[in-house]
């Protein structure tokens, strides 16, 4: 029987990973290359790399001339960062309470908070809209931040409480004996130790929020509060679609989320592999 050498095994593993990477990145690649081509070239040869002949920045100039585009960007940033902040803050606090304190109904409370993972928040859209209308929050970024915070919390609580259970009891107890308040223990001892988990939660929370079209369309469609995903839709018409502009807008929309991802990714990799190798 032929034994597999480590070399052949490593080639096989890399082949699988490279194949997966190519498949995953291909749509992004196509969007980016086509955003730099003229309209005719996009339709003539969608998979071709831009050449001096076909190179055209018309998409980008259209998008940037559409004066509100930076506003859309800013709106998306505010909504994503705001929601992320609240999800991480409240999620971590709830997770700490669930993992640290023994109280009646602890398990039930944990299950209740995790239930949101299984029930899509969009089922409640009508009720949410009624609520926002009643409270006068329609067409505000606050409405979006509130909804996304609710949407992100279940997963955050679920993941973080598992990680917080692993934080050494001795360390927290040492803090208590030294007279630290529970808040100091939470912020200065526990949070830094679950940083990889926080990064994981941040990425999983951030991407759906940045990409969401549904809630901005329903809760905040006004011009001054449009998010980038919604803003890009102006180029998609019922009869004519300005593909150059759409592709350019989408390419631009990738940048900020990519930056945020790079910031978190170092922590994220540690988070995913935590406990795998000890």
């Amino acid at each position: 029987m032929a034994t597999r050498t480590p070399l052949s095994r490593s080639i096989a593993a890399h082949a699988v990973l490279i194949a997966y990477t190519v498949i995953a990145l291909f749509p992004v690649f196509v969007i980016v290359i086509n955003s730099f081509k003229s309209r005719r070239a996009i339709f003539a040869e969608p998979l071709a790399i831009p050449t001096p002949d076909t190179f055209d920045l018309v998409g980008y100039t259209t998008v940037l001339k559409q004066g509100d585009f930076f506003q859309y960007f800013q709106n998306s940033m505010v909504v994503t960062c705001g929601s992320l902040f609240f999800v991480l803050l409240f999620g971590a606090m709830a997770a700490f309470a669930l993992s640290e304190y023994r109280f009646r109904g602890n398990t039930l409370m944990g299950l209740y908070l995790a239930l949101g993972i299984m029930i899509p928040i969009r089922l409640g859209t009508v009720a949410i809209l009624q609520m926002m209308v009643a409270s006068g929050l329609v067409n505000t970024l606050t409405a979006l931040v509130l909804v996304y915070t609710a949407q992100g919390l279940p997963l955050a609580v679920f993941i973080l409480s598992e990680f917080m259970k692993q934080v050494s009891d001795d360390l927290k107890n040492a803090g208590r004996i030294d007279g630290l308040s529970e808040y100091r223990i939470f912020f200065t001892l526990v949070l830094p130790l679950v940083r990889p988990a926080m990064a994981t939660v941040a990425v999983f929370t951030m991407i759906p929020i940045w990409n969401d079209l549904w809630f901005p369309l329903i809760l905040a469609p006004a011009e001054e509060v449009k998010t980038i995903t919604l803003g890009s839709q102006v180029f998609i018409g019922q009869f004519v679609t300005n593909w150059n502009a759409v592709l350019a807008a989408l390419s631009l929309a990738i940048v900020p989320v990519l930056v945020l991802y790079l910031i978190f990714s170092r922590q994220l990799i540690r988070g995913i592999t935590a406990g795998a190798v000890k």
Partner: protein
Amino acid sequence: MAALTLVNVTKSFGKTDVIKGVDLEVQTGEFCVFVGPSGCGKSTLLRMIAGLEDVSSGEVMINGARVNDVAPAKREIAMVFQSYALYPHLTVRDNMGLALKQAGQSKAAVAKSVDHAAAMLALEPLLARRPSELSGGQRQRVAIGRAIVRTPKLFLFDEPLSNLDAALRVATRIEIAKLHRDLDATMIYVTHDQIEAMTLADRIVVLRDGRVEQVGAPMDLYNDPDNTFVAGFIGSPMMNFLHAGALGMRSATMGVRPEHLAISRTAGQIEGTVSHVEKLGGETLVYINTATQGLLTVRLFGEHDYRVDETVQLTPEAARAFHFDAAGLRLR
């Protein structure tokens, strides 16, 4: 005066009783060791004294004042943990000074106390480092230093040597004993290692299943155990328990320490074959399989040559034997 008094203290988690009524008095300046197998409740009892666990019923008193409802930080105690539990984001100096800083002492006073404690433990060169830059032994010395800085009424140690390797364990053990003499402080020390208990303690509390089995000075427990559990737990290698009936005694069980079992190739009361020999240089341990009494251990001083499968005769030293009734209680 009693530094610590426990009056019928109990602890239950739901329906499970972990501590089933402990009464204890620890005198000021005493080194008291809680010892017992894992799961006997010794660490829980220590955490109750520290205030990290609520007391289900009974009273905990430190220096005569009831502290059941006093927060850990206000009990004037210091605790050293098995996993060191140093704050990873603080330097050694800040780790040691944190409690005093929290208590509102001035910077100069904190620095003075930290320097004093660091000098006692030779930690001065490490003061600027972070815990991640220290070895295990150094971390535990810092943890002990952090306890000293507070000048507490009560030092609590929760298996502080368990994470150290054998050589460091002995060195740190000696350091703790010296510290106890120098500080003249009251210390309560939890361990599952009876050697640590024997070498450090003024008084040992043997715990089993949440109950106190016996309290006494190390040699009192060794020479005068109340029951088979204490007799078996204190002393290494473990005491041999013989079926006394087979030897014509009235008691149910006869306990004989390995050094009080005479071995001979010619004549004796119990016949057996050697199953294993451990030569340690200063002493030789011979394990003998017997038909009537099971596996017995003999401890010989110096070097001896016994071969595996050799047939030998054993004779217990009757005057040094302990007798127990069927329930395991000592017959005196």
